[in-house]
């Protein structure tokens, strides 16, 4: 779902660069205040894994493939700030080294595949950890994965539309329909893979995933 170079107009990519830049700066500031030393290697390997997983395109509809986004599972496993930092790192490497996604479109791509699904995943993480609500955790994860992908896909089409990169003969509703239909199937795979990965990582590394946040749950007041 990487927006390639040349499809966004300068005002649109400039705005998105500012928005994602602010989100990234905020994430780095928060991460600096509370970063458990067990989280650093987990964050590193999750970044390596999501990069690798994004290379695995799976067939969805005839003539169409999809690949994992990964932001949603990162939001659940790492929280929003670290998730956003990981997704931004992946997208920067993809754009600069592998020509996947335009450099000027980086802000937009970080927003659609990073900020949006990471915030959604982090909201679910918050329910699990701080409120201890774990009803139908797997079902919630699958649905959340789908919603995250569709939300990102919708914003991609809106950005393309505002950039004048949709042909005049195509209505916005029609474009949103085509994009969301394909990404519904991709989103279901995203949700199912997220369940499997989250179960594996939480089983193997529960302290690194939930430890510090659970400990700091009541309040974060320091003397």
């Amino acid at each position, binding site marked *: 779902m990487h927006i390639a170079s040349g499809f966004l107009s300068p005002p649109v990519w400039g705005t998105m660069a500012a928005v994602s830049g602010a989100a990234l700066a905020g994430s780095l500031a928060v991460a600096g205040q509370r970063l458990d030393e067990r989280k650093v290697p987990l964050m*590193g*390997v999750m970044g390596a894994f999501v990069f690798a997983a994004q*290379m*695995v395109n799976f067939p969805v509809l005839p003539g169409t493939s999809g690949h994992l986004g990964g932001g949603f599972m990162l939001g659940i496993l790492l929280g929003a700030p670290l998730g956003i930092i990981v997704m931004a790192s992946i997208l920067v490497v*993809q754009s600069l080294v592998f*020509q996947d996604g335009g450099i*000027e479109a980086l802000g937009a791509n970080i927003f659609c595949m990073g900020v949006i699904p990471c915030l959604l995943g982090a909201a679910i993480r918050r329910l699990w950890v701080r409120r201890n609500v774990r009803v139908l955790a797997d079902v919630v994860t699958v649905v959340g994965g789908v919603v995250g992908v569709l939300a990102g896909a919708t914003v991609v*089409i809106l950005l393309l539309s505002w950039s004048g*990169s949709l042909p005049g003969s195509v209505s916005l509703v029609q474009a949103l329909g085509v994009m969301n239909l394909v990404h519904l199937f991709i989103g279901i795979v995203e949700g199912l893979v997220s369940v499997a990965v989250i179960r594996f990582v939480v089983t193997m590394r529960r302290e690194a995933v939930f430890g510090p946040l659970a400990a700091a749950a009541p309040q974060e007041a320091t003397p």
Partner: protein
Amino acid sequence: MSAYNRNTLIVGVAVALAVGGIVSYFASDKPDGLEKTQEDLAAAEPAHKGLDAPPVAFEQYTLKWLGEGFWGNAAAGAVGSMLVMGLLLGLGRLVRRKPAQAGAPESPADAT
């Protein structure tokens, strides 16, 4: 480094290399959801001046001098995932060091 963290790295790197270096070779080469949508809507031509990185060592997800094939793809998966990990471990070290330098553990140096 603690055994806990070292094992996190070992298992994570093994999984990432297996997925990016081996499994990805069997990936579908059909256009992804966004590319297909743009094709279907006949909006495939960029309308603005964009900026793509020059293909220095990698052409898409293939190491140029190994060519398209198993090893070219494996090299891309390995180098890409390790670049991301290196970047993140470096960032993690950088942001973690800041509070330690701002003030010694005993002295509350923040006057905010």
